């Protein structure tokens, strides 16, 4: 064992961490809105409310196209992503554009995360440090694609409630692997469709905010958010905006869409 410079690893901005998670959650939200529409009365118990919200987030399978725009002071980049998800713990994301990045793909399978690079012509299982690296050179990290453990890692209580919205305060459990001090999760009443998710540090300051807006009413009367905005509230923060241009919900992707072969060659389904 040598004393080498590997111990001095680079620092990656933490603002990359929750974005994909949030976007995946938002994607699922669109589907979940339909489920929530027919929901019964909003329960009083915070855990029951959180369960409903998470059920919405963990809705069924989907196939969608996401246009993501990363905005910085001096730069704006736009990506087109094709997403297939079974609605639980598996998803396949392929980059369709711009041409420079097209062909890259990411496979989430439970806790595992793989990336395919067309330049290398091979798939790689990401080490922990690599999981925090920039996703397509944006604020997104590969780690975010592993999913949201809100229900497993946080204790919930109702912080605010009125006739139209309910806000849950989510406090991390003692050994939960999260650096945040609190999440504040707001949903509409009565469908409990999430409207806003705020991340607070352990000093009581909000560091990130996801806002869902531009709702579109579907044929069944469901109001679906089509615009998602993630704002980094720290001093050097930026903004990432995502819009759904095409989405199909309630689908059941075959298992072959979540294999190494699908990662490398895509899934024609």
């Amino acid at each position, binding site marked *: 064992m040598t004393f080498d410079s590997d111990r001095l690893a680079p620092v990656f901005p933490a603002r990359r961490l929750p974005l994909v998670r949030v976007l995946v959650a938002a994607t699922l939200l669109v589907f979940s809105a339909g489920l929530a529409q027919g929901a019964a009365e909003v329960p009083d118990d915070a855990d029951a409310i959180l369960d409903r919200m998470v059920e919405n987030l963990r809705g069924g399978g989907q196939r969608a196209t996401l246009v993501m725009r990363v905005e910085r002071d001096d730069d704006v980049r736009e990506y087109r992503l094709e997403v297939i998800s079974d609605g639980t713990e598996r998803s396949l994301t392929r980059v369709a554009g711009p041409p420079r990045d097209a062909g890259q793909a990411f496979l989430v399978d439970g806790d595992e995360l793989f990336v395919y690079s067309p330049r290398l012509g091979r798939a790689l299982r990401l080490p*922990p440090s690599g999981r925090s690296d920039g996703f397509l050179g944006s604020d997104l990290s590969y780690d975010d694609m592993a999913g949201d453990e809100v229900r497993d890692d946080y204790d919930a209580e109702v912080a605010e409630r009125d006739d139209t919205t309910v806000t849950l305060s989510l406090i991390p459990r003692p050994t939960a692997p999260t650096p945040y001090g609190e999440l504040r999760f707001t949903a509409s009443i009565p469908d409990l469709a999430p409207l806003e998710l705020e991340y607070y540090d352990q000093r009581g300051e909000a560091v990130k905010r996801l806002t869902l807006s531009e709702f579109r009413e579907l044929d069944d009367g469901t109001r679906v958010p089509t615009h998602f905005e993630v704002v980094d509230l720290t001093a050097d923060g930026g903004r990432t905006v995502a819009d759904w241009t095409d989405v199909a919900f309630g689908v059941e992707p075959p298992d072959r869409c979540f294999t190494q072969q699908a990662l490398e060659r895509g899934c024609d389904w």
Partner: protein
Amino acid sequence: MSGRTRRVDRGLPGMIRLAWRSLGRQRRRTALLVVVVAYATISLLFFWGLTDGFLTSIYQSQARLLGAPVLVTTPEYHADPDPVHALPELDPLAAAARSIETVQAVAPRVDVPVLLRSPYASTGVQLRGIEPTAESRVSELPGAIGEGRMVASSGEIVLGDALAERIDVRVGERIAVDAASVAGPSALGLRLVGRIDSGISVVDETTALVHIDDARTLAGIETATSLALAVPIGREAAAARALDQRLPDTARAYGVEEQMGELARGLAAERVGAGVMGLVFALFAAVAVTSSVVVSVMERTREFGVMLALGMSHRRLGAMVTLEAILAALVGYAVGLVVGYALLIWMAEVNVLGPLFAGIWGDLLSGLALGTDIRTDVRFVYVAYAGATVVLAALGAILTPARRVMGLVPAEAMRAAD
């Protein structure tokens, strides 16, 4: 009686006595020679004492702060420090280590690469899992806590001050720790209970300590990646060699230099370079002595002419001049040894150099895991190193001043101006 005296005077002792008297008659020149040689000797002793002390300090800092005096790992882990190459078992290895007389303590460790995340930044580090009580016997890190306290139980983490600053986390706050364990990805939330402020940048920028149980969880192993052994300073390599004889093939003991790898080889190369410098230093000192003797010979040309006229052979005169140079050099050498070793011993006892060097080359020293405690080494071998000056001075005296004396013509020499 007189014949016997003449016989003695013509021998080496007589020559020495003659040269000694001559030195006594030329007290200013002799004093100058003695001072020059003493100065060179002191300088050489200081040079080697400082060089070795500096290297020793680096080795000890590496051993006590970053690695261990002796580390037992699998050969595979030594080549590729991945938890997948963890030790297969601990108890037999620990028993073997304790059977070595010089091993004072044994502490298991689990080193695992992780990603630390705060709400503001994340960074990759090599996390070290320790048994808090055992670790305090093999490492100086537990004594370098600047704020808070050392890890005492699971769920806690201690970071180097600069590392904590880099990801902006304060004592009492939680950090998310992600790892790729042998069994797959794993993660923990750990509360920061202390910050290490050693004043050594490589330590303060990279240290992350947790309880060994948490590290085992993150690494996905049940044993340890290494056993750290406490061994008295200077006996690390011998202890490692002795322990190697008692270890199974699955494990090996590594001394400090083996742990340091390329850095140790670089430092060894530096010492070779220092040896060349030391030789050049001795050469310059010898030249100074020789030039002093040359000046002395030139000033004493008439005296030598008279001595030749009285019947002294050129050979004996040359020998006398050489002996004068050697005697003066020996006196200076002896004085230099006494003063030089006194200086080295003092600087080995009192940390005079550390604060001085830290003020000038603080960043450089810190990068080498050196703090502000730098002391000289005191080794007997420096007597030989400094003795090179005397030998070179004698050679110089033979080659130049003595040859000049050998070429003197008595009549011309006696007419030479003072």
